[in-house]
């Protein structure tokens, strides 16, 4: 009995598909690509003061006031001046907030005009190509373009809203294409008007997913807003990159002290909110 059972196990084992050559093939491709990629990197050793930089970054990160001639904590961390970290982080979050709201609203028409079940295959192809184009343009390009509208935080807001369209409408489209049309037929049978059908048949199916997408994008946008300052589009990025460029690690460290907890907290809240939205709270 036992013997028979083990025989059948062995038999099944023998019949298992042989996939080793496919695995080897995949491995060979990855290795080849890795070797090719290594050719791009020329390791010329560490900068002459590279080790000093590492040491300083770590030292100042744990204690930004390490340079007694230039105390930064009191001046940059605990002050509500416009050049200090709290205000810059406030500005960064606000840029991300308005940017996300605008992006999420502009994405709605984009998404409806690119959904297969609304505009057909050709329309959807054109729409999604436009969306992909918006998505692949690096965020700095949008920043530089919108500085022409007004330098500072407003340029950041516009850059973030436009660059959000790509991802947000892509996720919206998936939701719209999944709409359950059975509900609309059911509403039809009760004699609902078109407006009522939209209000009770379509909007409830979309809100939770749309909101959850926007919240997720907000999380990404806060991170994006922290770097937009590098092209002059507001937020903490300019102070950070300026301090790094002049080796002022104390200020770099207080900027990081501002960014890390804020992004951490926002990610935490966003994850919680989205979990509640998907469970239907």
């Amino acid at each position: 009995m036992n013997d028979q059972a083990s025989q059948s196990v062995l038999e099944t084992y023998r019949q298992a598909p042989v996939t080793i050559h496919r695995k080897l093939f995949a491995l060979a491709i990855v290795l080849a690509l890795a070797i090719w990629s290594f050719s791009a990197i020329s390791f010329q050793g560490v900068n002459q003061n590279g080790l000093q930089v590492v040491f300083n970054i770590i030292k100042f990160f744990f204690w930004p006031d390490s340079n007694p001639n230039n105390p930064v904590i009191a001046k940059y961390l605990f002050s509500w001046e416009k050049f200090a970290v709290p205000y810059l982080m406030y500005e960064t979050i606000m840029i991300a907030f308005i940017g996300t709201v605008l992006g999420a609203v502009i994405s709605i028409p984009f998404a409806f005009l690119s959904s297969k079940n609304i505009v057909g295959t050709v329309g959807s192809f054109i729409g999604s190509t436009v969306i992909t184009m918006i998505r692949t343009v690096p965020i700095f390009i949008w920043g530089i373009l919108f500085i022409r509208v007004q330098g500072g935080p407003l340029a950041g807001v516009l850059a973030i809203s436009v660059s959000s369209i790509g991802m947000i409408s892509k996720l919206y489209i998936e939701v719209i294409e999944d709409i359950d049309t059975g509900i609309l037929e059911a509403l039809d049978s009760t004699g609902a008007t078109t407006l009522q059908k939209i209000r009770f048949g379509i909007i409830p199916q979309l809100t939770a997913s749309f909101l959850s997408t926007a919240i997720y994008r907000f999380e990404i946008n806060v991170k994006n807003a922290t770097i937009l300052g590098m092209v002059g589009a507001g937020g903490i990025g300019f102070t950070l990159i300026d301090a790094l460029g002049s080796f002022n690690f104390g200020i770099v460290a207080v900027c990081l002290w501002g960014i890390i907890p804020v992004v951490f907290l926002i990610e935490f809240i966003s994850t919680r909110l989205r979990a509640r939205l998907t469970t239907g709270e």
Partner: protein
Amino acid sequence: MKDLLQRLKAIFVPVPITTDNDTVVVPPKPIMPYILIGFVLFFYFAARATDFSIITVIARVFNFRLGPFGIVKRFFPVDWSYWPYVLDPIFETIQMSFLGSLIGSLLALPAAYFASQNLTKNRYVVGAVRVMLSIFRTLPILIYASFFKLIFFLGALPGTIAIALFTFSIVSKMLYERIETLDLGAYHAIQSTGASKIKAFIVALMPAIYPIFYSLSLYAFEINIRYAAILGYVGAGGIGFDLDNAMKNLPQNNRTIVILLFIFVTVVIIENTSRYLRRRLG
């Protein structure tokens, strides 16, 4: 007037409904109005902090001489003869993101092991690894790249390390979340036959983890290619450097479209290949 107040009140305090058999039902207290009020207030403060005004935006965006379209106009006529010079930096961008994704994903495997509650029983190890991963995740690639640029020489190396670090942090997170949903029955069964933990892990869990791992690494590669395109702005290699130059220097403005088009094509090709492979992996 009284009617209006009644209606306003009805938004916040639900009106009890009497049904046909005289039972009174009180609808649940609505939270939507409060959320909306909070949202409007937040929006107001955000608009003040960012000088946001819809009138300014519309007026300046459609100012075709000085607004954004004034720059876009300078992109034309497109200098198509520039395309051979785009190839090298584009390949460098791909190489950076490939290598960064590969190294980062490989490092993510052990980190995910120590961060998943069902595999690592020591709560403190799990907690410490998770906090470390979350902290790594908070900083954008570009900030890492600007650090590594100071340590190493300019070029693809700092960019690749930054991408690897970022990939490591996101792939570990997604991986441990997926590992925690795995069924560990087979793992424990094999351990109970006397196999060592490592053997049980290889035989029972690896076949389940591999497809997830491949799929997540491909996904990371897909994202990284777009991040890699901007690393050049801080001098960390890739096409961003050329893009920055093309935007900054007036006579080179007409190269911008060529570069953007190449980025677009690269991203589309890589995303579609990666998506095809990920579908195959299930």
